[in-house]
């Protein structure tokens, strides 16, 4: 799996006084820079696709973050895409997972996401922009690797029912690979940070 060329900036802010008395409110906003795709596209801030992406990220993280531990506070996750080469939702989820972990907010498990598609009878994982534009079916899957539970499942374009299992399996396998990568990165970061703090 090639490393994604989608760059993200993330911001996590916590503990603001807010509505829900028993748990935290998770708020996600997605924004895509005009220079992120091949053609320069001016995207107004509140357009439907960004809204939808924000809602989906929110749904994913509401399920993964232990919101009961932070009542009456709000967790904002802002994602800005600098360069998009396919699989933007998956990249957003992976980056946001690292950000939430870095911020110290407790989560059930890593949330690892990957996209998958189906071309010429083979299931492909992690589609690039060219493969997405070809118009075949695309699946985006966000997974909690330890339990195998699917936090979000989204699919576009026509895929025959019989191939669904194949594609799901490919996406799940790729998400687990992402998990090993993320795990390694987090441990390395913690190791370096502890060295710097001089323990």
């Amino acid at each position, binding site marked *: 799996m090639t490393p994604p060329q989608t760059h993200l900036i993330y911001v996590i802010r916590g503990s603001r006084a807010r509505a829900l008395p028993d748990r935290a409110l998770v708020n996600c906003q997605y924004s895509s820079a005009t220079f992120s795709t091949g053609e320069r596209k001016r995207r107004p801030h509140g357009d439907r696709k960004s809204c939808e992406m924000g809602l989906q990220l929110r749904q994913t993280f509401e399920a993964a973050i232990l919101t009961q531990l932070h009542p009456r506070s709000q967790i904002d996750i802002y994602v800005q895409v600098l360069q998009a080469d396919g699989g933007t939702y998956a990249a957003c989820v992976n980056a946001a997972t690292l950000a939430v972990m870095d911020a110290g907010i407790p989560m059930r498990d890593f949330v690892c996401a990957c996209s998958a598609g189906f071309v010429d009878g083979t299931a492909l994982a992690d589609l690039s922009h060219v493969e997405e534009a070809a118009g075949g079916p695309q699946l985006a899957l966000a997974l909690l690797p330890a339990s195998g539970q699917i936090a979000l499942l989204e699919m576009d374009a*026509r895929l025959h029912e019989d191939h669904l299992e194949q594609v799901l399996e490919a996406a*799940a396998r790729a998400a687990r690979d992402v998990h090993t990568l993320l795990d390694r990165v987090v441990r390395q970061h913690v190791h370096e940070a502890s060295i710097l703090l001089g323990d």
Partner: protein
Amino acid sequence: MKETPLSNCERRFLLRAIEEKKRLDGRQTYDYRNIKISFGTDYGCCVVELGKTRVLGQVSCELVSPKLNRATEGILFFNLELSQMAAPAFEPGRQSDLLVKLNRLLERCLRNSKCIDTESLCVVAGEKVWQIRVDLHLLNHDGNIIDAASIAAIVALCHFRRPDVSVQGDEVTLYTPEERDPVPLSIHHMPICVSFAFFQQGTYLLVDPNEREERVMDGLLVLAMNKHREICTIQSSGGIMLLKEQVLRCSKIAGVKVAEITELIQKALENDQKVRKEGGKFGFAESIANQRITAFKMEKAPIDTSDVEEKAEEIIAEAEPPSEVVSKPVLWTPGTAQIGEGIENSWGDLEDSEKEDEDEGGSDEAIILDSITMDTGVEVSNIGSQDAPIVLSDSEEEEMIILEPDKNPKKIRTKTISAKQEKAPSKKPVKKRKKKRPAN
């Protein structure tokens, strides 16, 4: 208006019922509500009723210049609106999240799945293409908006006829419906959304949730399929954790449901086609006729009576038999017989109570008027005794007292005290009687 919150007992009741595999309207877990499709007089206008959820769909078309990066393709535009009449919670400013979600889902289901051949909508490449606009309005919200909306959209698209166009060299001729018959759109397949509601962290699942069930559900999985068993869209929402097996099982169920619904749609379209061809009446005015008050018709609700007999037998077996009451008839004289003994006439109680009141009144007066001379006492008792046989009417008043003028006028002149006291007793019974008629 803010949505009224669901009470805890209602929530618990619904969840318990779902655990026992029972739904409030008597459906099974995989049953859809009744789907009713009616068409308007214009081509491309339809109303779909899924139970009580109603969606109106209207398709319109226009010639526009195409998008720059897709010069040879027509444009499809979908718009779902949650009308304020659908539910009191839908206010113009408040709907954004739900609206975005539904609209995006519909767009992905119908546009990305390429159910309509957009190439056929091209008139002059790079200059003129058809823009097809589908407007959906939610008229009543009783759960499962997305299914009803997707059915309405696809039915409206299938029903729609666009004006015929011919291109000769540089000339483009647009024919009116009178000159040439309008042409239907070329539709490859019909994607239909099927919603699955999950409860208790994914343990229980229901197809086609109604509004109450939607309020208590944990999450929703929407699968759009066509009758060729191709999945067009999957969308999970609501923060439930799914397992792969659940998704696969849902896709199998959805396949079955979509086949049924597609058949229904085909039949409805054919019927409408037939009626229009034969010159019969068509349109909403015809299809809503049943709902007049003068033609009141209740839909038959199927009730499960399979175990009624056993239950009835159980109840009879466990119940105590009634006590022996039947006695033999006794013939007194020819023409007069008696069966059993009746209970005492309870009407007698009422007269007794009236008499008791009189006596009380009389006794009260007797006590108060101790100091008064014997004459007045006699008068009082006379009044009291006179009341009993006098029954003037059967009004609600228990007694009527006739106030007679004092029989000893001399006493009034000489002994004012006694006169006052005489008047007092006459007043007292009146007061007493008034007390007895509080309702009047």
